[in-house]
């Protein structure tokens, strides 16, 4: 028998063993062979595993829908039974008994491997949580910003619906091309300006709003503002008169430190109603 034939004969024995179809004489021969060549154990396992591939070729059939729930319920029920049994036999001991046939040496090695794997998974999870928390913080800040804009928009819409304290502004003088809308909020003593072509002023200057009422002797100072953002500008009204629907609103440019008297350049004025 050549070496090649001999190997082929080994494979025949290993295949026959996987098929559980060895004669007693063949089984004895294989036992001797494995004793002399323990490296063949790996090849024996390959044949077993090859045979176990066969069911993968079957047309798959889904298990009944309720089977998963029944298995889980039975598992948890059996676990409780094991716990009760364990408590009865040895009060105070850990209730979960985990049989492990691999032996303590192998078991310890596998447990160490498990700890490494689970530790790595734990680290990945914690990193993922930090990233998710940062995303959450950013999303929360965005939500708060949007909510503020929504409240502002709702306020403007409410005022637009009533129309009583809305002033349409038109530019004059150096801001002849400018325009805008001014809302005064009597209940909240605040004003909102939405304007176009109204530039931001240097830091030593400021826009001032004045209320002019036919019954008043002079314009009433209604606060100062600058164009800190291209959107609406909102500020507090210093007196109730400003929010009491005066006849006209005026906007001037004044030095920041100037006294609150209407001496600056007039740049916006409301259309007289």
């Amino acid at each position, binding site marked *: 028998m050549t070496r090649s034939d001999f190997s082929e004969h080994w494979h025949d024995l290993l*295949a026959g063993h996987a098929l559980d179809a060895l004669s007693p004489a063949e089984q004895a021969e294989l036992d001797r062979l494995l004793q002399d060549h323990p490296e063949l154990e790996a090849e024996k396992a390959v044949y077993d595993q090859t045979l176990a591939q066969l069911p993968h070729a079957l047309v*798959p*059939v889904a298990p009944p829908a309720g089977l998963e729930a029944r298995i*889980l319920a039975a598992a948890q029920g059996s676990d409780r039974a094991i716990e009760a049994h364990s408590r009865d036999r040895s009060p105070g001991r850990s209730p979960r008994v985990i*049989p492990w046939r691999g032996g303590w040496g192998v078991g310890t090695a596998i447990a160490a491997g498990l700890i490494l794997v689970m530790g790595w998974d734990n680290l990945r999870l914690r990193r993922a949580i930090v990233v998710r928390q940062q995303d959450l913080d950013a999303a929360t800040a965005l939500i708060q910003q949007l909510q503020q804009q929504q409240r502002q928009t709702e306020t403007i819409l409410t005022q637009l619906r009533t129309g009583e304290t809305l002033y349409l502004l038109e530019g004059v003088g150096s801001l002849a091309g400018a325009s805008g809308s001014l809302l005064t909020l009597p209940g909240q003593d605040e004003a909102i300006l939405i304007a176009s072509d109204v530039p931001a002023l240097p830091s030593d200057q400021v826009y001032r709003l004045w209320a002019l009422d036919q019954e008043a002797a002079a314009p009433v100072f209604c606060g100062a503002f600058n164009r800190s953002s291209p959107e609406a500008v909102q500020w507090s009204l210093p007196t109730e008169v400003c929010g009491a629907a005066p006849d006209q609103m005026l906007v001037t440019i004044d030095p920041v430190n100037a006294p609150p008297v209407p001496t600056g350049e007039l740049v916006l004025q409301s259309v007289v109603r």
Partner: protein
Amino acid sequence: MDEADNPGTTQTDEASDFVLLAAMQAGQAEALQVIYRRYGRLVYTLALRVLNSPEEAEDLCQEVFLKLWQQPTYDASRGSLSTFLAVLTRSRAIDRVRSRGARSRLLQRWQTTNQATAASPSPLEAAVQGDQAQRVREALDQLTHAERDVLEIAYYEGLSQSQIAERLNIPLGTVKTRSRQALKKLRNILKDLT
């Protein structure tokens, strides 16, 4: 056969069998659930193929997964978890068949033989069922019909070689040669899957 029954995945769903088994041994039923969803179809299909009874297949499927939960005897050094479950399922299914009466067994043989000649899956089904299933089917296609018949009867019905010879009306030596030749061919074709 596809191992993943559910297309949606979570981090737990993507955990390796090794990690899931460790979690299961720590008493986490969620790990058993993921393992079931991964291999339940394989176990049930194999049980149904051998037992040819949905009720018995369901019962055996439950038995196999409870066995895994209560007495985890799986040794990763001896092969994949799917291999372990397939071996356990086949072994217990054949034990059940052998415990039936002779009349019942004859009926089962007839029905199972008929089922074995069922139509192959469509290309669409094959694509869905995954690469491993396709690889095994292609490997089986490289066997002769005679080799495949002998191998499948031996595997799914657990008949002895003399019983197969009697069933197919061929010499015992032919059964022995064909079955071993078939498995050796598969071993060479599928060696990277094992």
